[in-house]
């Protein structure tokens, strides 16, 4: 499985690089205009590569399950954010190199009217890309509402890309060749098609496959479970631990969905799925007001966070509402009659806030499950674990073959950082622990 994942990662990485670099090297084919200086050609190559990377950003966020599965959605989104800085860097460095080497092409015209139109599109593209990066990096500080930001993000990205392509065509050096011009126009159409796929075709597909909320269950810890049944279709199969994008408050064409783990068993009948959502003070505060009977839209399943090898001990480490994917795993293994040993280390603030506490106690009688509760604010007389989950706690509760167990971690970012550090200290190989961060949007 791991070698298969590695092969898939290598193939998708190669395809990604091919889509950036093949259109660049295609410029070297056929009849070529006279070569310019090394610096000019290098800066032009950076400009072309930067633009191709910007266009491929639509592919990274298009939620292609086969692409994201080997990495995990969180890695892809983080890559999308960071690689945008690289793409912008390349695009901005491109004219800076030309200025630095005083390329003839950048000789200052005497009036603005003499500036070629290809250069105006370069200004437009670079301006759009700078605004795009600033608003993406400092959206919260600039107090831009998420939906407005998301819409502006797409508009700015399109402006940057169209500006870039028109700049290349307008400058008319390599792209005077009709075949090369056609290739880059096709590339642009391909990037736009990626955007249309996620913003038009996917919502159309979801519109034809709606879900109905059949039950709204109040859980411990200011948490609500939505039970959802497919309406007029069979639903989808998911692996325990995966998540879906939930769109409760509007049509699937609305730009904002929210990712939540499935908390139900993957073996549930009739395509039924459940999501368990804690009130964290943002849009999640409205979840408990959802009424049974409401129509909703679900896009999924996604994510690489799912149960491992059947003979390994599974150590499930949940912090707060990070219990939801673990619950899906435990419920699924119970339904399957799976007897692999499970240890759940479940951290929460108070005893009363531990969601699913009663059901977990019942499930202990049906699967090989041991539970270690860890409270940061324990009640009087509590003799269980307190504080934060750390290496010492693992040593107290786990069989000593630490490197042979599989670890699944879900919770707040600081908790996940601390646990990954603790597992590193215990010499647990990196391939033995699994995590996926849900704070990626």
């Amino acid at each position, binding site marked *: 499985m791991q070698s298969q994942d590695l092969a898939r990662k290598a193939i998708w990485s190669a395809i990604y690089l091919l889509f950036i670099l093949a259109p660049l090297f295609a*410029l070297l084919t056929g009849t*070529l205009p006279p070569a310019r200086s*090394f610096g000019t050609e290098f800066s032009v*190559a*950076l400009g072309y590569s930067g633009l191709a*990377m910007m266009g491929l950003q639509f592919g990274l966020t298009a939620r292609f399950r086969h692409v994201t599965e080997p990495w995990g959605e969180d890695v892809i989104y983080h890559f999308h954010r*960071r690689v945008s800085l690289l793409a912008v860097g390349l695009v901005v460095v491109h004219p800076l190199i030309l200025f630095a080497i005083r390329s003839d092409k950048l000789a200052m015209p005497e009036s603005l009217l003499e500036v070629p139109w290809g250069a105006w599109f370069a200004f437009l593209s670079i301006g759009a890309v700078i605004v795009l990066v600033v608003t993406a990096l400092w959206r919260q500080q600039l107090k831009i509402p998420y939906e407005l930001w998301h819409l502006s993000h797409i508009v700015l990205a399109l402006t940057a890309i169209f500006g870039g392509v028109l700049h290349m065509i307008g400058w008319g050096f390599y792209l005077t060749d009709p075949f090369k011009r056609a290739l880059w126009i096709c590339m642009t159409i391909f990037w736009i098609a990626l955007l249309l796929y996620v913003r038009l075709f996917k919502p159309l597909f979801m519109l034809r496959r709606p879900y109905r909320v059949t039950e709204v269950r109040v859980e411990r810890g200011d948490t609500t479970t939505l039970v959802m049944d497919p309406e007029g279709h069979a639903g989808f199969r998911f692996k325990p631990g995966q998540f879906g994008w939930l769109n409760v408050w509007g049509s699937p064409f609305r730009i904002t969905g929210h990712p939540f783990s499935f908390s139900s068993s993957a073996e549930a009948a009739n395509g039924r799925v459940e999501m368990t959502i804690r009130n964290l003070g943002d849009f999640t505060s409205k979840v408990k007001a959802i009424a049974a009977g409401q129509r909703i839209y679900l896009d999924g399943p996604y994510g690489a966070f799912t149960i491992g090898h059947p003979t390994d001990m599974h150590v499930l480490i949940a912090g707060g509402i990070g219990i939801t994917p673990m619950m899906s795993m435990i419920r699924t293994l119970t339904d399957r009659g799976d007897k692999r040993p499970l240890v759940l280390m479940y951290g929460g603030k108070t005893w009363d806030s531990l969601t699913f506490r009663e059901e977990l106690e019942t499930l202990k009688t049906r699967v090989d499950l041991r539970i270690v509760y860890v409270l940061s604010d324990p009640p009087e007389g509590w003799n269980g674990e307190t504080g934060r989950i750390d290496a010492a706690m693992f040593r107290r509760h786990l069989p000593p073959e630490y490197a042979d167990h599989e670890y699944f971690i879900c919770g707040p970012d600081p908790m996940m*950082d601390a646990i990954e550090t603790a597992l590193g200290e215990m010499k647990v190989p990196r391939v033995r622990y699994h995590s*996926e961060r849900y704070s990626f949007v």
Partner: protein
Amino acid sequence: MRRLLANRLVVLTGVIVVALSLLFAWLRVGSLH
């Protein structure tokens, strides 16, 4: 840890793209007049 993986992939992409852009310029100036 997972962000570190993504960051490493970005650095690797950057190195490959810059290296191949240099190769592009070298091919263009050196042999493909």
